[in-house]
């Protein structure tokens, strides 16, 4: 059999694995994996930023509570959290929540919990001096965070974000357990139907995930290699503050 004939024979299976029953039915397969990864990556980044900033800004009992909650999410397996969201979300929201939303929610929570600590560490790595300098220039705590600490911190945090997103892409495969028709789920379905090609199927699936994860790492690596100027708005704000500060001193000196 020629390669072309083989491809022709395998095409429906391949297409099913990559897109699910898409034009006719809902999106599935590798495409759904990508979509899930993007949505939960964005949500986990938001949750992580919020959590990390909250960790950096709070003290005392509230801080302790935050650390405990984040620690809880970090201590339980993703699979168990998926079970919990699958069970609790419909109960709390009083609506029928699809499995897909539950999984995305669980992934965002776990990713957010891990990223919180990275964000906190990134802010700490920027140093207290930067914050003090910003405050002494007359910025509020939020302005200091937004225009001085975060732009520098994000650069430091970037590798943690990429690592977490790679983990996230891999963890979307766990949606299999609640029957979301993503890539791994369809692969087991196809495997159960064909029975005789488990090695080829799972090697192919692993390879596609490998391509997805490597592409993400490569793309972010490229994006970060070119040093961009940090937040032009923040720089302008800081420059203006410096100028005003000098002007004020000058006024005071001449008076």
């Amino acid at each position, binding site marked *: 059999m020629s390669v072309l004939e083989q491809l022709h024979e395998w095409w429906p299976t391949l297409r099913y694995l990559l897109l699910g029953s898409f034009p006719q039915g809902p999106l599935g397969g590798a495409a759904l994996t990508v979509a899930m990864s993007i949505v939960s990556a964005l949500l986990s980044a938001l949750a992580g930023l919020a959590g990390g900033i909250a960790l950096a800004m709070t003290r005392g009992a509230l801080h302790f509570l935050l650390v405990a909650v984040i620690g809880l999410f970090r201590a339980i397996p993703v*699979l168990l959290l998926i079970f919990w969201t699958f069970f609790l979300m419909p109960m709390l929201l009083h609506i029928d929540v699809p499995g897909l939303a539950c999984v995305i929610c669980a992934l965002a929570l776990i990713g957010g919990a891990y990223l919180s600590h990275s964000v906190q560490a990134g802010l700490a790595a920027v140093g207290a001096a930067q914050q003090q300098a910003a405050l002494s220039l007359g910025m509020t705590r939020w302005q200091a965070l937004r225009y001085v600490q975060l732009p520098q911190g994000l650069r430091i945090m970037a590798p943690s974000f990429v690592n977490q997103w790679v983990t996230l892409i891999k963890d979307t495969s766990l949606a299999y357990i609640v029957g979301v028709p993503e890539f791994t789920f369809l692969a087991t379905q196809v495997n159960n139907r064909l029975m005789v090609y488990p*090695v080829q199927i799972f090697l192919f699936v*692993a390879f596609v995930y490998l391509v997805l994860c490597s592409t993400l790492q490569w793309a972010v690596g490229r994006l970060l290699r070119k040093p961009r100027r940090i937040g032009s708005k923040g720089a302008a704000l800081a420059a203006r503050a410096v100028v005003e500060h000098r002007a004020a001193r000058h006024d005071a000196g001449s008076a």
Partner: protein
Amino acid sequence: MGNWLEPKYTQLILHGFMTTLVLSVCAIVSSTALGFLLGLARHARRRAITRAAALYVLTFRNSPLLVQLLFWYFGAATLLPQAWMSWLNTPHPLAVGGLTFAWPSFEFVAGWVGLTCYATTFVGEEFRAGMQGVPRGQQQAAAALGLTPFATFRYVVLPQALRIALPPLAGQYMNIVKNSSLTMAIGLAELSYASRQVDTETFKTFQAFGAATVLYIATIAVLEAALLVVRRGGAYGRHGGAR
């Protein structure tokens, strides 16, 4: 406590917990041994060895553990010779000093192999980072004192590397415990599997998942505490060694 699970189901969950613990310990031991070798391989002088090690890390780190487990469970069964499979599937109980070890199921073996291959990449990277964290000057100083390369590695680099690598290693061991939950996908009756089974049989979802959650958190907490104890012991040991 009318709402609590019946003893039968508590038993089921505890049995699942034991399986989780045994699988985790097995995977921790084997991935530590292999990870140490991988860490060495990534520092090897021969380019071929470093390349191969890097390729191993790339492939096993960037594909999901679940897919790897499915591969070992479904794929390995067709790849291995028939004789090996039937040997694996017939029990060979091992009796050592009055203790009888049950022969592991194929699910257990596949889960162990899968977890080990996956975790080895992470453990190996921690070892590598630990060895990289030891300043070059230490090696040069040891060489200047007349230590052989092996003695330098054994008595100067390794102890410091282990101290650096210990906290992230403990983190990886916690990940192994959590990742062992994925073996439920290939039908190993560990903690997550048991809690889900209890959930479907009793509809006491809250209790079933709650019990599993508490047990996982307790295991992670014990590992965290063990890390603290070892680190403190290490600090005292260093004091003793300096004298």
